[in-house]
């Protein structure tokens, strides 16, 4: 009975893991929420002025950078987002000369960071942003491992309350009906803000109108299951530091197989192991029974033998006895007869 209780507990533990998985697996292609907002970045328009970086720094009240935002020499070295810089513009030497590209959280439709977080600190909001709740974050940094765009950064120098830092898509400003800081500040309209589905139309229109200026691809339309932030460019994306081998599978799809195995293991393993145990137990039992039977057998056989032996002995003893009796009798008879003969002899002598 105790075993059943334990397995029941275990099953419950497994089910708590399994439930949301099956829900997810059941309908993995909902597509983006129709209200999902996004930003389109056009690399042919960006001039690398770093105004977006400045705006981001002000809006998010981040610490002052090492080099001022109007110092364009920083563009000569490759940079990535970090805990003090939520967006970064880099310069790339490409087949068409210098090209600039802005990077920040892409606000994936099915974010790897959110699917990886074991306290659900990340959440894809219906209107687009992937939000982060620092009040539950444990600081395991699995989100950083998971993000295919290498965006989340960590406050490594914070001893007590380190946070994961990444672009928020200016969710607080969106709530006030304002544009994201970077979009508002961009002097060249390299950034376009709007409904994601409209952005795709705009991007496609630009590509079809100027086929010589753009490569025929909207980066982020399908990459890793699609992102809210998308890119178009005049040079292949690999030349501006963007990976083209990410595939279209979203993070939840990548891990679905492993998660789906959980209920199976929880369900099947105890049965299998119980079966193996029963078999080995039965083997033991059979071995044991056989042993007992063999002993019994041996005992009976030994018993029979003993009996036979006894019988033999007895009969042998009988014969011997018989003979001894005969001998005794004979002796007795002889003895009994002997005095008479003697007597007779003496009588004969006397007479």
């Amino acid at each position: 009975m105790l075993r059943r209780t334990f397995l029941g507990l275990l099953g419950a533990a497994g089910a708590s893991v399994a439930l949301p998985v099956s829900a997810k697996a059941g309908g993995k292609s909902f597509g983006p929420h129709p209200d999902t907002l996004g930003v389109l970045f056009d690399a042919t328009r960006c001039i690398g002025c770093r105004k977006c970086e400045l705006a981001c720094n002000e809006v998010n009240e981040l610490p002052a950078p090492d080099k001022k935002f109007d110092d364009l020499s920083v563009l000569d070295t490759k940079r990535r987002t970090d805990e003090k810089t939520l967006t970064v513009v880099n310069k790339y030497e490409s087949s068409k000369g210098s090209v600039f590209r802005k990077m920040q959280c892409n606000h994936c439709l099915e974010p790897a960071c959110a699917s990886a977080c074991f306290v659900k600190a990340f959440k894809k909001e219906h209107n687009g942003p992937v939000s982060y709740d620092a009040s539950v974050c444990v600081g395991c940094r699995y989100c950083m491992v998971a993000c295919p765009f290498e965006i989340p950064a960590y406050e490594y120098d914070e001893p007590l309350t380190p946070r994961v830092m990444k672009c928020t898509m200016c969710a607080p400003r969106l709530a006030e009906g304002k544009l994201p800081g970077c979009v508002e500040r961009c002097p060249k309209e390299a950034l376009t803000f709007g409904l994601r589905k409209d952005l795709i139309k705009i991007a496609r229109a630009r590509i079809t109108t100027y086929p010589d200026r753009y490569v025929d691809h909207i980066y982020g339309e399908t990459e890793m299951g699609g992102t809210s932030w998308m890119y178009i460019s005049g040079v292949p994306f690999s030349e501006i530091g963007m990976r083209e081998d990410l595939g279209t599978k979203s993070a939840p799809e990548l891990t679905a197989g492993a998660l789906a195995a959980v209920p199976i293991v929880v369900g099947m393993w105890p049965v299998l192991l119980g079966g193996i145990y029963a078999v080995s137990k039965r083997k033991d039992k059979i071995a044991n029974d056989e042993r007992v039977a063999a002993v019994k057998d041996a005992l009976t056989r030994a018993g029979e033998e003993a009996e036979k032996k006894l019988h033999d002995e007895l009969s042998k003893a009988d014969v011997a006895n018989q003979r001894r009796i005969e001998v005794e009798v004979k002796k007795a008879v002889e003895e009994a007869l002997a005095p008479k003969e003697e007597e007779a002899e003496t009588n004969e002598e006397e007479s």
Partner: protein
Amino acid sequence: MSVDTTAVEKKSLFTPFNIIATIILIAGAIVTVMRFTGGLGAVTNLDQNNPWGIWIGFDLMCGVALAAGGYTTSAACYVFGLKKYHSAVRPAILTAFLGYALVVFALHYDVGQPWRLTYPLFVQNGTTSLLFEVGLCVFLYLTVLFIEFTPALFEWLGMTKIRNIVVKLTLALTIMGVVLSTLHQSSLGALFTIAPSKLHPLWYSQYLPVFFFVSSICAGLSMVIFEGTLSHKPMHHLMDEEYLNNHDGLILGFGKAASLVLFGYFSIKVIGLAYDNNWHYLTTGYGAWYLVEMLGFVALPSFLYAIGVRDKNITVIKWAAGLTVLGIIVNRFNISMVAFNYQLPSAERYWPSWGEITISLFVVTIGVLVFRFISTRMPIFHEHPDYKEEH
């Protein structure tokens, strides 16, 4: 504390082991203070591209794999009914329990806010995360291991009644242990399935969970042999007749199993390689290292085990066990560090700092000390006189 153990300690207070252990403990204490006053950045080489270092790669990944001896041994003994391995169960359970406890201990250094380690379970469940599965299983399994360990504790304390109750649960606990181990050994591998773009294709596979699970069995079997060898000398006086008599037979049996499982592991790795059609990577630098791992740390020990078992050569088997243990470490390092972020230029790659290495040594040292403390006092390598002839 019995008389002879104090005598032993008195005699050997200034052994090289004790001196080194003391130095490590002091260094560890210093780094601990630095870590919790200065943050992760003060003692680690972690950065924005490399969020996980040896505290995950060694303390967690290897720690969990090498503690697999617990479930493999108890499954062999209680589920598969191989009663002759009974004497190996307690040392293996103790090792596994300490292993997991230390994994959890080490995690307190690695996560940013360790006081929130229970949040995933009790505040907000991130059930889509494989890390949640790891956390839940480790938490449950640590509990199971603790209960499995308690009979030794209760025997030592002379609490017969409760001890007998726990012993009755053995089978249920063993099955739970196997289920939980299957889940989190494999989910540790599955953690990396989310990052196909970061892990080198030779190591990335949809089968990573299976690879991790199967290799954990090899690790478990080999650790039991390896650790038996290590404890044999210092603990010899504590080992009873049954333990010593069964020791060679156990090594042969486990060696045979390890040889087979390693061979199976090799096969499924090759199948994985073929399935993803990654053969062309074998000619690259990473390919060469991959071949070293596969041939030197999987094929070779499998072969050595087979020879050792055929010739009944315990020494060869022990070497094979050592090689396999090393191989598991190599494999977990490769996946969590060497082949991870392979696309980054070498200047941006991770290399552990002295602080990180110190803490890892610190954790291992604590483990050895606690193991020594417990196994010299409680009935681990021998049966308690009151409970002999019970199984």
